[in-house]
């Protein structure tokens, strides 16, 4: 099907969520306050590593309005530790530290009061005695023998180490004319949504039922709550009709949920825990990848890549949780968009005395893209070759798809040279170069950055099996309920919460397209986790792909039933009628037809007109696996990771002030291909937003620590989210190579922009620096001081030469 055949898909149209948001009518978890709600504030550790030797809550408990104080030791008796995805039974992650605290800011005790303000007052009156312990902050030091141990019972700080070799590494290296090695650093940052994490829990003693409203974007949240609370899974009801104020991967407050739910059960009252910004930034366990890469690219004399080696060390913070799996997802795009026949990939996860890591936009892909692209730029410098020409020479060619990369994944489709061409045309490259030269002539440093990066889409969870072969999960399904009521109105039920992805619009558009009914009249509502269907939440750029598959399945089943009812009434066989935009017509005589409303009326009210044996009503539930999933990983780690591969090329012009080191982005262009676009405004919003997020990573954002392990980024005054001043006009153009594995050719877009922006912006800065004779900076964020130091080094070198 081509774009022109769609009635609603790919067409401009309002995003239905916008209306409630512009009028302040979103419903976020902080807006939900059941009668009698109690509020939580947290007592946090001032030490990066310490033994807790005593907690005195007497003064707090004497305060008016303070209801209870809960310590980690008390909570540990009543709950199970939070889930680890590696086999590390000695690593016990709990909502409140029990016995030892392993990072500064870790939650040690919870104070419950009649208001949040009083709970905070109470937290100041809880006195904790600590005995400081040796600590480790540097990931390389943490990996060494003799390092202080974050979890002494585990015996090492190394939580996972996997070595992979795919293809003829030795042969491919032997035929190379040269190699280039780049050590790069992706420092600790995160998505840091404007809404902190929040949860309201209400245990109903009369019904044995836990109700939870939370700002989540997390697979298996209900199941994990139940397990930690020692409840049967059918006693936990998580409500998904909650607007989530941004997530981009991180809103996985399982520890928040367990804590609030336990307190509700203990106090027989609804309990609300809304993090403040400090609790979120220091104690929420919501940091992102913190990585040290060494990438070595081998190539022939004319710039053909023959082999790549990627060594990565990831600092998980104190509690690894799901984070080490972020080392495995990039295996599905480990060669980027390039034809590289062999790969070595050595991945290590260590723990340190810092806040724990969680899933972040792209699940490890963006840091990996950055490391690969930094190495590609370095090869171009070493070969004296144009960066775009080098990329073009190594791109997988459009006729080679589906293309199997050495690590076992097949890329579905793409046209990388065409997307690069579009970016070059969009930017008017000669004009961009003229602008760069003009900036240089004006006394500034200027450089152009280019990045060509993939976004794996259609997330499944096979990385769990890659990193931990004892975990044999192979499906990550999504489902919808489609109902046509007796009046003919269409309702779609989904069982997930959304954090800005415009799912209502996407679902209504796709259902409308499948059924040939106007999306404007289709209602989209959210079930809860007990009345709903299987869903793994909107992670891994997967909803248009996997939920799209479920919508196709539901639509087909619904149409089958409508055809059966119509055929019965038209006196022909079910295979002699066609579904036609809601009506069903006899193929041989299309004037003989039954209208949508009549079929709905028969199905709901007229048993005498129903075919025998057909259930009343028009309602179907369809669950779909992720496309191309289902197989376990081979022992060498090869497996189809995600099914769909979106692609983006960034071209950015940066101007640097040589006096202050400040970087400004002067021009920003992107050509992007996510296959069939469902809603153009939603897609470009994702591209722009992800790009802005990537600009933050490249230039501004870092969770920094003092040598004592104290967080130095205390608020948004130090942790710098880009504002309108920092984000330039971003110009985007779309290309479309449809995926052959999805219903309408769609691919993922939730991580777009973020996949390439860090690499592109760093490339622009380094182009400016190297043109000025300074060394490139391979550590993000590139701060003004880094630029200044690089220029200073060049100047000193130059003086030394004289």
């Amino acid at each position: 099907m081509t774009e022109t055949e769609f009635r609603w898909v790919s067409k401009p149209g309002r995003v239905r969520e916008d209306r409630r948001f512009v009028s302040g009518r979103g419903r976020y978890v902080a807006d939900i306050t059941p009668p009698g709600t109690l509020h939580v504030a947290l007592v946090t550790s001032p030490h990066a590593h310490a033994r807790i030797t005593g907690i005195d809550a007497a003064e707090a408990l004497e305060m008016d309005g303070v209801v209870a104080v809960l310590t980690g030791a008390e909570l540990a008796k009543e709950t199970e530790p939070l889930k680890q995805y590696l086999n590390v039974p000695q690593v016990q992650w709990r909502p409140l530290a029990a016995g030892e605290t392993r990072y500064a800011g870790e939650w040690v005790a919870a104070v419950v009061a009649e208001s949040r303000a009083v709970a905070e007052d109470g937290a100041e009156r809880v006195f904790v005695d600590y005995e400081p312990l040796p600590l480790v902050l540097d990931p390389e030091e943490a990996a060494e023998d003799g390092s202080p141990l974050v979890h002494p019972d585990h015996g090492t700080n190394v939580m996972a180490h996997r070595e992979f070799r795919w293809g003829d590494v030795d042969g491919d290296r032997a035929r190379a004319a040269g190699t280039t090695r780049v050590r790069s650093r992706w420092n600790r940052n995160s998505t840091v949504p404007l809404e902190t994490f929040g949860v309201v829990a209400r245990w109903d003693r009369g019904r044995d039922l836990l109700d939870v409203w939370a700002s989540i974007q997390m697979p298996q949240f209900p199941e994990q709550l139940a397990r930690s609370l020692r409840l049967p899974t059918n006693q936990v009801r998580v409500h998904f009709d909650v607007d989530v104020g941004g997530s981009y991967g991180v809103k996985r407050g399982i520890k928040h949920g367990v804590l609030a739910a336990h307190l509700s059960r203990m106090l027989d009252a609804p309990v609300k825990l809304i993090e403040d910004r400090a609790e979120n930034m220091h104690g929420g366990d919501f940091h992102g990848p913190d990585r040290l890469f060494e990438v070595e690219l081998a190539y022939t004399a004319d710039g053909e890549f023959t082999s790549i080696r990627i060594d990565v060390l990831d600092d998980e913070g104190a509690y690894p949780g799901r984070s080490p799996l972020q080392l495995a997802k990039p295996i599905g795009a480990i060669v980027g968009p390039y034809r590289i026949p062999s790969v070595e990939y050595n991945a290590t996860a260590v723990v340190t005395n810092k806040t724990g890591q969680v899933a972040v936009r792209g699940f490890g892909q963006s840091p990996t893209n950055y490391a690969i692209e930094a190495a590609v730029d370095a090869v171009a410098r070493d070969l004296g070759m144009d960066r775009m020409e080098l990329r073009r020479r190594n791109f997988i060619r459009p006729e080679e798809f589906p293309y199997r990369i050495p690590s076992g994944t097949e890329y579905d489709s793409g046209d990388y040279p065409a997307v690069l061409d579009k970016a070059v045309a969009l930017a008017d490259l000669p004009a961009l170069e003229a602008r760069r030269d003009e900036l240089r002539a004006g006394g500034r440093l200027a450089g152009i950055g280019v990045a060509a990066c993939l976004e794996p889409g259609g997330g499944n969870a096979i990385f769990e099996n890659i990193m931990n072969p004892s975990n044999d999960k192979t499906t990550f399904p999504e489902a919808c309920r489609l109902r046509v009521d007796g009046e003919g109105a269409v309702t779609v039920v989904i069982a997930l919460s959304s954090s800005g992805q415009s799912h209502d619009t996407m679902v209504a558009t796709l259902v409308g397209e499948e059924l040939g009914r106007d999306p404007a009249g289709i209602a989209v509502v959210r079930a809860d986790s007990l009345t709903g269907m299987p869903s793994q939440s909107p992670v891994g750029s997967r909803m248009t792909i996997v939920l799209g598959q479920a919508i196709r399945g539901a639509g087909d089943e619904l149409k089958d039933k409508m055809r059966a009812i119509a055929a019965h009434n038209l006196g022909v066989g079910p295979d002699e009628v066609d579904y036609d935009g809601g009506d069903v017509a006899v193929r041989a005589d299309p004037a003989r037809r039954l209208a949508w409303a009549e079929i709905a009326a028969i199905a709901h009210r007229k048993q005498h007109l129903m075919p025998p044996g057909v259930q009343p009503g028009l309602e179907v539930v369809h669950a779909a696996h992720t496309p191309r999933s289902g197989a376990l990983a081979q022992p060498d780690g090869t497996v189809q990771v995600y099914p769909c591969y979106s692609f983006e090329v960034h071209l950015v012009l940066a101007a640097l002030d040589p006096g202050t080191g400040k970087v400004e982005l002067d021009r920003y262009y992107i050509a992007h291909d996510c296959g069939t676009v469902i809603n153009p405004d939603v897609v470009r919003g994702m591209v722009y937003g992800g790009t802005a997020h990537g600009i933050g990573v490249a230039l501004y954002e870092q969770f920094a620590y003092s040598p004592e392990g104290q967080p130095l980024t205390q608020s948004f005054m130090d942790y710098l989210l880009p504002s309108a001043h920092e984000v330039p006009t971003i110009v985007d153009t779309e290309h479309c190579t449809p995926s052959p594995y999805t219903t309408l050719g769609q691919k993922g877009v939730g991580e777009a922009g973020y996949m390439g922006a860090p690499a592109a912006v760093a490339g622009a800065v380094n182009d400016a620096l190297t043109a000025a004779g300074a060394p490139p900076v391979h550590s993000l964020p590139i701060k003004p001081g880094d630029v200044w130091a690089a220029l200073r080094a060049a100047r000193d070198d130059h003086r030394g030469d004289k």
Partner: protein
Amino acid sequence: MGSRHEIEIVVNGEPRRCGTAARTSLADLLRDTLGLTGTHLGCEHGVCGACTVLLDGEPVRSCIVLAVQADGHAVTTIEGAGGPDGGLSPVQEAFCDAHASQCGYCTSGMVLATQALLEERPRPTRAEIDEALGGNICRCTGYVQIREAVERAAEGSGAR
């Protein structure tokens, strides 16, 4: 807990009289006492701008204004930003047209900051837009469609 005070404020055109602790922020008063949850708290340090409301028509961060400071003043929240007939204002319509919102959390503050800008500068330059919105952080959109919305709203106001 500190002292308690009786204050009078006009909220979205309606005079309100409420008791408040001296330390209560305007944001908490609006959300918890008056139930106006369209005002969102992002940082409570006065940095992110999510809690922006208009105090006598000027944008302020309601997380660092005390409720008692609003005594005798007029406050406009997002609930009062719409048209007189309960419909959307031109600024809100422009935000919908440009899809200038994703998760919606910063949107209330963005809409009010835009409204205040256009009151003062009906045809703002790009630099004036960035200056007016520079104190309102959006993590979702990258600002491109927000700027488009401001420009559309400005064009619309020029046409009227």
